[in-house]
C-alpha cells in the first residue's frame, strides 16, 4: 500500500468533502435557524447550475464570475418564497414543512424539466490540475474547497459580527425570546432562507464545472445534504464543513478499501451511527430538537 496512493485517496476525500460542505451549507443554515427541512435545496443548486451553463454557452460568462449574480438571483427568489409561503407554516410540525417544500420541489423540478430539458449539460471548461509529485489535485475542487472555507468564514463573520447575524443567532436560540427583544422574526426567517438559497446558488454555479447538470441529480444532492447536516451537527456554522469533510473522507477511504458500492453504504452508515450516538452531530450543541 504505497503512501502516495493513500495520500491521494485522503486528499480526494477532503476535496470531495469540501464539495459536500458547499452543497450542505445553505441547507444546514435553513434547518438550523428555521427548523425547516428544505427539500427544495437540491433543485435550487441544479437551477443555479442550469443558469451558469446558459450564461456560459450564450455569453461565455466564466462560472466563477457567474457565481455571485446567480447567487443573488436565488437569494431574491428564496426570500420571496419564504415570505409568501414558508413563513406561514414555519412553526408547524416537521411533517408539514417537509411536505410543503416537497410539493414546491415537484413544481420547480417540472418547471426546470420543461425549461431546460433533462439532457445533462456542463460548462466545458477544464480548470486543469495541480500536480504535487505523485499526488494530483483538480483545480475546480480546490476552488470548491476555497469556496467552502469562504462560505463558512462569511457565515461565521456575518453571524458573529453583523446586527443581522446576531438577530439570526438569537432567533435560532429562542424564537419567542428573540421576538420579545424586538427582532422581527419573520424578516429574519426570510433573509435566512434567502441566504440559504444564495449559498445554493453559488454552489450550483461552481458545480456546473464539476458535474453534468441534470434535473435527476436533485435527489442525490439532497441526500448528501441530509447526511452532512446530521454528521456535522446543526446550529453551528463549521458544522456543515466538518460534516462534509467527514463524509468525503469516509466515502473516499471506504471506496478505496471496500469498493465504490460500499462507499455509499458507509456514508449512510456513518449518519445512522452518529444519529444514535450523538444526535447533535460532531460539532452540534445539545437541545437541538
Amino acid at each position, binding site marked *: 500500500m*504505497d503512501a502516495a*496512493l493513500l495520500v*491521494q*485517496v485522503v486528499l*480526494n476525500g477532503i*476535496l*470531495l468533502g469540501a464539495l459536500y460542505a458547499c452543497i450542505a451549507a445553505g441547507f444546514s443554515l435553513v434547518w438550523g435557524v428555521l427548523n425547516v427541512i428544505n427539500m427544495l435545496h437540491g433543485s435550487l443548486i441544479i437551477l443555479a447550475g442550469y443558469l451558469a451553463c446558459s450564461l456560459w454557452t450564450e455569453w461565455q460568462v466564466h462560472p466563477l464570475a457567474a457565481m455571485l449574480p446567480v447567487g443573488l438571483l436565488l437569494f431574491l427568489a428564496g426570500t420571496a418564497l419564504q415570505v409568501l409561503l414558508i413563513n406561514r407554516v414555519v412553526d408547524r410540525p416537521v411533517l408539514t414543512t417537509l411536505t410543503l417544500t416537497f410539493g414546491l420541489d415537484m413544481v420547480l423540478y*417540472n418547471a426546470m*424539466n420543461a425549461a431546460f*430539458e*433533462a*439532457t*445533462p*449539460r*456542463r460548462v*466545458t471548461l*477544464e480548470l486543469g*490540475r495541480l*500536480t504535487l509529485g505523485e499526488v*494530483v489535485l*483538480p483545480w*475546480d*475542487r480546490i476552488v470548491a474547497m476555497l469556496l467552502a472555507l469562504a462560505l463558512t468564514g462569511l457565515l461565521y463573520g456575518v453571524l458573529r459580527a453583523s446586527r443581522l447575524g446576531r438577530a439570526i443567532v438569537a432567533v435560532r436560540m429562542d424564537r419567542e425570546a428573540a421576538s420579545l427583544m424586538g427582532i422581527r422574526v419573520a424578516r429574519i426567517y426570510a433573509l435566512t432562507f434567502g441566504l440559504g438559497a444564495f449559498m445554493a446558488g453559488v454552489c450550483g454555479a461552481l458545480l456546473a464545472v*464539476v*458535474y*453534468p447538470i*441534470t*434535473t*435527476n*441529480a436533485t*435527489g*442525490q444532492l439532497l*441526500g*448528501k445534504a441530509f447526511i452532512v447536516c446530521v454528521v456535522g451537527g446543526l446550529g453551528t456554522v463549521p458544522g456543515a464543513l466538518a460534516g462534509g469533510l467527514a463524509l468525503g473522507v469516509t*466515502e*473516499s*477511504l*471506504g*471506496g*478505496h478499501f471496500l*469498493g*465504490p*458500492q460500499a*462507499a*455509499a453504504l458507509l456514508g449512510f452508515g456513518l449518519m445512522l451511527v452518529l444519529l444514535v450516538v450523538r444526535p447533535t452531530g460532531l460539532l452540534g450543541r445539545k437541545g437541538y430538537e
Partner: protein
Amino acid sequence: MSISLWFQRASVLTALVIAFAAAPAQATAETLRIGAPLALTGGLADEGRKQQVAYDMWLRRVNAAGGVQVGDRKLKVELITYDYQTNEQRASQIAEKLITQDRVDVLTAPFGSGHTKVVAGVAERYGVPVVASVASSESVFNQGYRYLFGTLAPNAGLTDALVAVVKAQLPGVRRVAVLGREDVFPKSIAASMTDAAKRAGLELVYDALYPVNTMDFSSPLSKMRAAKPDWIFVSGYTKDLVLARKQMADLGVSAPVITMITGPAYREFAESLGPLAENVTSATWWAPALTFRSDDVFGSTQGFVQDFQARKEKGEPDYVHAAAAAALVAVQAAVTRAGSLDKAKVRAALASLKLDTFYGPIEFGANGMNAARSLPIVQIQGGKVVVLSPEPMRQGRLLPVR
C-alpha cells in the same frame, strides 16, 4: 356526524370509482393502434424524448404513404403515448390502460430495461406483442415471455466486436480495467466485456461496479491509475460517463484506449466534454454513417437521417432514435405479413421475421432478441462520431488517446 354529511362523503367516493369504470372507449374507424409508454419526465426523460421523436418520424412516413398494408386494405396508424414518469408502477398501469381501454394491437416498451420487463409481464398475460427498442441485456429476455421482442442485438456482440477492433488495430494493448454501473444494461455489458477480454487473452487488472447515483469516481479511478491499464472500459448512463471522463482528466488517469459504453453514441457526451471526448471509443448498435440496403418506409439509412435533420433536431440521430424507429418498422412488416391485426398472428409474423431495414437486418431469435450481427465500433475524432468497423463502412482507424 349528521346523516347528510355522511351520505355526502360516501356518495362522492362511490361516484369517483364508478366514473372511472365508464372510461372513454371511442369507437373509431379501424386503424392499427400502437401503444407507447414513454418516460417524458423523471430520470430517463432525455431518452424518452428521443423515442418519441423516432416514433413520430415513422408515423409521418407511414400515414403519408396511406397507412399499413393489412390484407387487401391500407389501415391508418394511430400512436397512443402516455408518460410513465420513469416510474415502475405507472408503467404497469399504462400498459393495462393501453391494452384494455385504448385496445391497442401492439405495444412498444419503455426505455428502462427493468420497466420493459414490467410492461412485458402485463402484455404477456393479454397476449399483446411488445417490441422493445432499447433493451439489450439477456436478463430482460430471460422470463420466457413469448410476446416480447427487442431490436437491439445482445451485449456479447458489442464487446466481441470491440475487442476484435482493438486487438487488430492496437496490438500493444494488454491490461484492461473495467468499471460498470450496478444497473441492468451497464452491469451486463461490463460482464460481457470482462468475459470477452479473458477470452481474447487480455489481462484484467481492475474490475468493479459503482452504485446507481454515484457523485464521485475519485476512489475507483485512483485505484485504476495504480493498476496502470492500457485500456479503460466504463459503462453507465451519459451523466455517469461525463463525470467519470472529467475526473479521469482531473486525476491524471489515462490509457491508450478509453471505451465508454454508449457515451460517444450520444450527442450530449461530446457536447458536455468538449476536448475530453476526443478519441473515446464505444460500441453501439447503429451509427448514421452506416449505410444499409432497406426495403422499409425510410428507404435507406440516409433517408432516416434526412428525415431527422428535416425536423430541425440538433446533430445527428443516435442508436436510440434508429432502434426505436426500427421497432415500428418491424411491427409494420409483421402486420403486413400476418395480413391481419390478430395478435397471435402478428406475434408469429414477428417471430419469423427476416427483414433488411435502414437500421440493419432484423431477425428475432428464440428469446425475442434481434440476432447478433457485426455491430459498429465508433470513436469520437475531431468532435465527430467516426465508424471504425465493420469493414465496408469503416471511416477511420482507431486512434490512441493522447
